[in-house]
């Protein structure tokens, strides 16, 4: 049954998609908040260097899926294997088990930053580097160069000394992406990166992510409510509604049918 699922998913890959090794393997993952099931029987292989899009209604478990990958939410059942390390549903303390965290970067849903928050763009990106959360380590020259490089990648190098609260929404989002990149991750998780951005800035951001994916060979998993934006970059699309309803090429007309079915019950 499980093997069937996996082979079906691999078979659904479009021709241009990378056929690397699975970097994340989820098997029969079940997650519940109390007696509310958030994720039911998720079987998913995410391949190395792949750009995976996730779409689904509110409350369909998209963010919970990220929390499981990040080791913030314990599974009730099933197992997950990330970068060769595996974790089972009964492992209890996820925080201790999840040593892959250094290799996963996360850009959360947009949150408001206080206009006067005492941090410059530089400080925020530097938070992505390990010494900023390890008490007794120092910032090396390498750290600083990496921070500057990441700011250049997202085109914000001229803003490094600006207070973070003074930037516009799109600029803040780019800074947060730079912060995620500063970690030198293998996997980048983005939770609705374009929500609250106007369509032009959103398109710019999506283009930037596409370039990043090509240049840095990152594995990117993006949650977005905008199917058009997802189609720009994604090699595979997951339609999630507590469980995986459909997976395949985002340009497949079946994706539209399935989305209509889930969102509009047609």
């Amino acid at each position, binding site marked *: 049954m499980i093997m069937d699922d996996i082979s079906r998913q691999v078979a659904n890959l479009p021709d241009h998609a990378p056929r690397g090794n699975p970097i994340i393997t989820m098997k029969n993952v079940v997650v519940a908040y109390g007696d509310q099931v958030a994720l039911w029987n998720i079987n998913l292989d995410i391949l190395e260097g792949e750009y995976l899009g996730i779409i689904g209604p509110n409350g369909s478990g998209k963010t919970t899926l990220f929390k499981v990958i*990040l080791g*913030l939410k314990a599974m009730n059942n099933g197992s997950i294997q990330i970068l060769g390390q595996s974790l089972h549903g009964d492992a209890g303390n996820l*925080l201790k088990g999840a040593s892959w*965290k*250094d290799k996963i970067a*996360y850009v*959360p849903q947009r*949150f408001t*930053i206080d206009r*006067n*928050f*005492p*941090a*410059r763009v530089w*400080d*925020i990106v530097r*938070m992505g580097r390990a*010494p*900023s*959360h390890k*008490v007794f380590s120092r910032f090396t020259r390498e750290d600083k160069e990496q921070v*500057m490089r990441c700011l250049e990648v997202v*085109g*914000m*190098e*001229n*803003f*490094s*000394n*600006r*207070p973070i609260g*003074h*930037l*516009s929404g*799109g*600029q803040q989002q780019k800074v947060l992406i730079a912060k995620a990149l500063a970690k030198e991750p293998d996997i980048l998780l983005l939770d609705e990166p374009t929500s609250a951005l106007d369509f032009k800035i959103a398109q*710019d951001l999506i*283009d*930037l992510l596409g370039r990043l994916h090509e240049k840095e060979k990152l594995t990117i998993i993006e949650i977005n409510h905008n199917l058009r934006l997802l189609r720009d970059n994604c090699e595979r699309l997951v339609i999630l509604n507590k469980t995986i309803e459909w997976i395949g090429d985002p340009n497949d007309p079946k994706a539209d049918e399935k989305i209509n079915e889930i969102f509009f019950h047609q």
Partner: protein
Amino acid sequence: MSENQLEANMQSTKERRYFSQGMMFFGTIIVVVTMVVVISMLGDIGEKLSLFSYAFMKRALVASISIGVMGGTVGVLMLLKNMVFYGEAIAHSSFAGASLAILLNINPFGLVLSFGIASAFGIGYVNNKQLLKNDVIIGIIFTFTMALAIIFTSYFINYETNIESYIFGNVLLTTRENVIVIFVATVGITVTIFILRRPLHYIMFSEEMARVAGIPVKIYNYLFLILASLVITVSLKALGAILVFAMLITPAAAAYQWTFRFERLLILSIMFGVLSSITGLIMSTLFEWGSGATIVFMSTMIFLISFAISPKRRSKTNVSSLCRFCSKYVSEDEWEVCSEDCFGFGGKTHLHDQDDNIYLVSGNSTKEEGECDDHG
């Protein structure tokens, strides 16, 4: 010089300007206070200030400076975590602890501290689980502990004697042991916060991201609550339950007007705390005002002046140019990089300087100069 260096230079100039303005302000206050004091009390100033040679005055000075230092440090965190009213709730529950201790006729320090930490943990737990809104649980604990304190005092035989010193406090009455406790707490708290400042800064920016980065956010939050209740309980006797809160919030809020950098914010806040302690104590001696009240009065003055002349809010006044690239008025504060509508993708990234010159940044290294079409 590349744009990065250019930008860095411009920015550091600006940041230095902010900081030096803060320093100038700091100096001005000292001068003004000294002048006021000298002019108004010219007659018997020497006689009054000779009080400082007494041991009790020296103790008061050490105690109030220490409170200024630790209040300034912890206050910054409280301000940035949007938790200022925790301080008020903790102060009032410590007061309940003090009244119980007086009733039982035991050394109050242990009870004061345990009441403070218990209420801090109560609020922290509810906040952590998001069971209730913050202000609801703070309001409940604040009023309940106040009610407890009043119930305890109704058993008192001679009401006025001791309990009033916990409401209003008197820094001049601090005992030798008290000063030692305050001093040790100050060193401990300040050193702890300076060592942990980077993870704390991260948590204050976003708890969620800090958790993802592997910072034990819960432990840090409880540690912060313990430090806050420690500050309040050790300074309770010196400043009183009503006023102690001011030493946490006011210097931090004043420092907040001057800088966008966390470390500088901490240092400025400590400096403002110390400044208001010293000037407040001197003024209270000269005018024979209540010591705690005068310290709070001085810190509020510092805040008011900072608020009025804060460089953060002065930006919209001096319009220096109408930029042809962004077609916007560029304020004096924004001269270094025009950020609106043209920040990199497709648009033209450019720098302004104070003389209305525009440096067009094209590609990575080249730049050309232009002039603004109009001048505002």
